[in-house]
């Protein structure tokens, strides 16, 4: 892969994110309603509405509002949250680590478990283990994630007792270092598992199909004929090629995971971006929404780039120029 290619791809991130922001800006501004409503509650009078609209620049024409937004954005300023009054970027930045932790834990969990299950199922297609794995993963894939979340809380967390139902840390916890990490890990387990459950299904099924196809191919037959041990046949000859589409899916599903956090973070009270998104949509908090769009768009674009780069590692035939 050439450095020029990488530079070009990195450069493309800028217009992509900018385009997403333009579309996002138009969308949030064309949506019906008025962010001042969320502030006024039930009781604002006409004067209050006029005052707050002027304060937020909402009395300006849309084009003028966009010009202000774009100009501020060039200096890295997303504006202030209408509702909380604080810089929108700060709100997003303080929530981002929790969401990153949740997504990366889920992705890791889903990849390891999904590929393992795919191998179990795909190494002997049509067998009992294949049926069991395929059936279970299909059921997980079909179930709505908020339902699984609630079920896990009621059937696992509450009876078990030591698995927390809510949040990222214990109430009023002041622990630091290892104790803090363990506390967070304990809280992370259930939401990460539930969020991963859908991805596990996708990854396992893809691995299984790819592996089954590869195991029936000529080069695997040749390897077997040469007397290569079965674990090596599966692990080195078949799996490597079977994983190529899996990588595409894992990368592509990052966007899906970001969407999944909206539900999971609400169900488990996880203090991340997903919940900020829900409350900001509800209150029409446009600066915060646009800041979240920017971060989510950036994340997806970057993950896609990384996915493309991983291809090269996995398949020597792929070259980028």
């Amino acid at each position, binding site marked *: 892969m050439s450095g020029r290619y990488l530079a070009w791809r990195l450069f493309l991130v800028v217009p992509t994110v900018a385009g997403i922001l333009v579309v996002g800006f138009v969308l949030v501004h064309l949506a019906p309603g008025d962010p001042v409503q969320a*502030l006024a*509650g039930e009781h604002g009078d006409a004067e209050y509405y006029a005052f707050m609209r002027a304060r937020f620049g909402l009395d300006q024409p849309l084009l003028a509002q966009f010009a202000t937004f774009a100009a501020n954005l060039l200096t890295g300023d997303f504006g202030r949250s209408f509702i909380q009054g604080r810089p929108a970027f700060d709100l997003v930045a303080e929530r981002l680590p929790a969401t990153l932790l949740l997504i990366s834990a889920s992705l890791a969990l889903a990849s390891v478990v999904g590929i393992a299950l795919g191998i179990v199922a795909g190494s002997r297609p049509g067998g009992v283990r294949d049926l069991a794995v395929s059936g279970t993963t299909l059921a997980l894939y079909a179930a709505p994630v908020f339902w699984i979340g609630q079920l896990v809380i009621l059937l696992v967390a509450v009876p078990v007792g030591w698995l927390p139902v809510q949040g990222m*840390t214990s109430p009023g916890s002041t622990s630091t270092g290892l104790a803090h990490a363990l506390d967070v890990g304990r809280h992370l387990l259930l939401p990460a598992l539930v969020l991963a459950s859908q991805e596990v299904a996708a990854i396992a099924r893809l691995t299984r199909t790819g592996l089954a196809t590869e195991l029936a191919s000529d080069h695997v037959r040749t390897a077997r004929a040469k007397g290569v041990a079965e674990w090596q046949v599966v692990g080195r000859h078949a799996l490597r090629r079977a994983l190529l589409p899996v990588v595409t899916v894992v990368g592509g599903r990052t966007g899906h995971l970001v969407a999944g956090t909206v539900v999971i973070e609400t169900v488990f009270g996880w203090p991340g971006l997903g919940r900020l998104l829900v409350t900001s949509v509800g209150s029409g908090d446009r600066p915060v929404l646009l800041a979240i769009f920017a971060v989510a768009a950036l994340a997806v674009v970057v993950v896609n780039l990384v996915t493309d780069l991983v291809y090269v590692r996995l398949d020597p035939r792929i070259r980028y120029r």
Partner: protein
Amino acid sequence: MGLSAKGDSAVRGRIGRVVVLAAAVAFVAAACSSTEETSSSSTVAGGEGPRGGTLVAATDADPGQFNPAITTSGSVHTGAELIYNGLVELDEAQQPVPELAESWEVLEDGARYRFHLVEGVLWHDGTPFTSADVKFTFEEALLQYHSRTKSSLSGVLDRIETPDERTVEFVFNQPYAPLLQQLNVTEAPIIPKHIYEGTDIPNNDDANLRPVGTGPFVFESYTPGSEVTFTANLNYFKEGLPLLDRVVLRIIPEDANQVASLESGDIQWAFNVPGVEARRLDGSDEIDLLRTGNNPGGANCIMTVSYNLDRPVLADVRVRRAIALGLDQQRFLDNVLFGQGAVAEAPIHSGIPFAHDPDVAMPGYDPEEAGRLLDAAGWGRDGGGTRTSRGVPGVPDGTPLSIDFLYFPTFNDYAQLAAAELAEIGVDLRIGDTALERDPFVQRVFVDRDFDTNVISYCNGTDPEIGVRRMYVSSNINTNPFSNAAAYRNPDIDRLFDEARAEVDTAARTDLYRQISDILVEDLPYYWLVETTNVRGYRTSCSGFGPAGHFAEAASCS
């Protein structure tokens, strides 16, 4: 609570009309003679308990910041009301009891109020609290950014004077009766001048995220989206309070998970127990429930059906009355609210006893009478189907009696039940595509006025001036959300509300609101279904909670 609450408030209403004024006078006198009165002033559930301990409470929304003077948001007020105080606190009957003001005088027939502040109150940073803080808070924060206080006071309040450090005077253009109901920590929390002076208050992140108040608890830390922690204010001006050492406010967005956490013992207080869970927990040994009409975001809400009076079909009061007669309030209470609330027995909420009139002639449930009224109004019926017009003015003959009904998706159960009940009297209530989120709902109802009927949770507040007037006066027919949705115009009503606002004599005010209620029940621009109740849940190991405001001020846990 159902029947017992109705009976209770009926009694309170009748007695209230007579004694409220006397009680107010007595309270002022008592407060003047003894500041100890203040320590037992808040409404509490349970008794005095042991000192010390930590309370873990749950609320459903992230506060984001802690300045309650610039917002009416319930998520901000839930935490911030532990930190701040108002000039007064309101008791269960919405009557003022001393807080930062130890006593007050109503002068010039209610055009001037003089407040005497408690001596020796300190801000959490040690700075003395003075009358300048009160004046500053009103002028720079409340009258700018607090939508309720701004909209009710800014037209009538002329100026605020501070003759000395412990005296504040509010001077009005004309006599203004409801001031004392608008000075509690929810409507008018007092913030420190020495911290906010000269800054852009809503954007003063340092101050809004590290609040300094006078209240029972001192802000300790805030983890966005996760929790807020508070420690006891050891210099609190109310003798002997607070009892707890520490309060942790957890943010748990799902009501069902608040209940799960309450049952597992992870938390000891939950702000929102859904009706169906409340019914299940009612007999529990470990969990007690506290039912209240109050909320940090607003109080005394009634689920109200609005009729669009601009529509020819609904311009006829007989049709409006028939629809009211066809809706069984008790079924809404039982089947939608799971019994957590009360049947609305008057246009004004029972949580405002002096204005609530339990004896007013509400339509009640009578489908047969509804049928007779619709027949008389020209809406005939063959068999059991939808009625059609036969000589209704402004409506072509043969038009079916089919009207739409707009509602928030969270009020789906109301829509389903209303449609089923009205079908029985031959009214086709269209609910198929009228579940609208808040923004499109407001657009259609208040901006486009493109609706026949809808259901809104109208919160009456602590005084009719705050949340009742806006629904009925003709000057409030506009595009603002939750204004006069029915577009109801009645000069008598306009006049009576103006008179009630200027009348400081509570008995006379009561009489004016009775007249208003009588006219409203006659005209039926709206129909009042059920009063909703907020159910708080707490572990029985804790006690002493108040319903709103400083809910943990007098709480303790063993």
